């Protein structure tokens, strides 16, 4: 199963902001982390990630700098800032609403409530 492209795109911003909230990171590591989190189900490309990082930087949610950590190559690291954390919190609220609503209509795995359609006009 692969997650649909639209859904990947819609969840991209909170995903990246969430990963950066764990600590500063760089492109390749972010992609690897996404892979890890989704068990390889989320198909991210470089063409999605880097322009997105640049956009978040332009919007002022993240800051970037070229750094060389000892023993490694010089890399462009991205770091989330106050505004980015606020945006992440906002996105989280929105996603929680969506997820909660979906949970309401979709029966959980242990739940054997039959899926019965109620004909319109027959409630009450």
């Amino acid at each position, binding site marked *: 199963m692969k997650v649909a492209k639209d859904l990947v795109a819609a969840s991209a911003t909170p995903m990246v902001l969430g990963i950066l909230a764990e600590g500063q990171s*760089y*492109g*390749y*590591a972010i*992609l690897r982390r996404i892979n890890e989190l989704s068990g390889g189900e989320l198909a991210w*490309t*470089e*063409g*999605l990630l*880097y*322009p*997105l990082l*640049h*956009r978040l930087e*332009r919007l002022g949610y993240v800051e970037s700098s*070229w750094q060389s950590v000892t023993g490694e*190559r*010089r*890399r*462009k690291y991205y770091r989330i800032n106050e505004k980015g954390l606020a945006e992440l919190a906002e996105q989280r609220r929105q996603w929680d609403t969506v997820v909660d609503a979906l949970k309401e209509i979709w029966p959980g795995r242990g739940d054997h409530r039959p899926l019965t359609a109620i004909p319109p006009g027959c409630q009450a």
Partner: protein
Amino acid sequence: MTARESHEELAAQFAQWRQYVQRRRELQPADADELEDHLRDSVDALVAVGLSADEAFLVAVKRMGSLDELSREFAREHSERLWKQLVLTGEPGSTAAGARSRRDLWVMVLCAAGAAASVKVPELFGMRLNEDGAFYGPNFSLFALPWLAGFIAWRRQARRPLIAILAALFALGAVAANVYQLTETSQSVVLTGIHLPIALWLVVGLSYVADDWRSSRRRMDFIRFTGEWFVYFVLIALGGGVLMAFMFGTFEAIGIDPEQFVSLWLMPCGAVAAVVVAGWLVEAKQGVVENIAPVLTRLFTPLFTAVLLAFLFAVVRTRSGIDVEREALILFDLMLVVVLGLLLYSLSARDPLAPAGLFDKLQLALVLSALAIDVLVLLEITQRITEFGTTPNKAAALGENVILLANLAWSALLLLRFTRRQTPFAALERWQTGYLPVYAVWAWIVVLVFPPLFSYA
């Protein structure tokens, strides 16, 4: 393969990949660095699970996806990169080039201000812009072009002898414009007003080609410069027109009439300053914006060819002679100038090594139809001159016609031989650049010799 060899091969592959990336305008060097770092991480990870270096490289590149797709995604976020920007004061990073273009900017401002001021200097000696047309008409180019030539000579760091020659030629122009005391209604004053700018523009050309004035390539650069300068000047003039319309409208609304200010200050000073500014723009934006003159030529060559062919067809079909009045002769001169311009600017943008194509044949058709029309006109006009005698205007128009005709006839021959692959394209280019002094000589003759020749008529 040893570890060192494979390491070198990998470095070469990365270098090649970078070249491909750098060709994309959407991807800037910083992006290339970032993507390269990503690619290296991918390669390292793949090598760690047991792939050889070049296998790992292939897989990593493949995973990154095609550059087309990648740059499309980048373009969506950085759409401004597809529009080349004119950077007036240099890139923030590069200090040497930045300092140079800042200096250019200041010298340009100085020259433009000098040109604007010099228009008003004659007023100190009692000349009035709106009354002394006989003075301002022939002299106008002398207020602007020396400043432009000065700016270009400064940029080229021209040597002393060249500067002396330029100064002498401008002085000669000043003498020609003022020594003959032509009256405002004479034909000669108009002719000087038209031909002196041409002569002086070619003096500007001398400052442009600087030390290498024999080089055909440098002269071609000057032709390109002329076309771009003209386009910029027209654009600035359009902007100036809008500015003036606003001034009239807004100031009249509060009961102040701005006409005196506009016609005596804004328009003359703005026009001569625009001459310098346009020249600076062409120099500053070289390589930043696609040259526009060749694009316009490409658009209009087929259209002009169609019109000229239709005209020829109509003349033959109706068997009506061309009614050659003086205005008509000037109109046909202008037609030749336009055809020559179309020819020159498509030459200037052409890859000299490309083989002859459809467009070259189209140009041949354009030149041939212009020639055919012009021969008809010339026959009429010589008949008329032998009947009624000559005037300065007729003589000048006829002379120009002959000069342009000679140029285009030989161009047509060269074009024909080029489309038949008998001569290289360079011959055509050399012919056009070699012809430039002919225009200069003729313009100076009209300015210097015509007034006494026709007893200041």
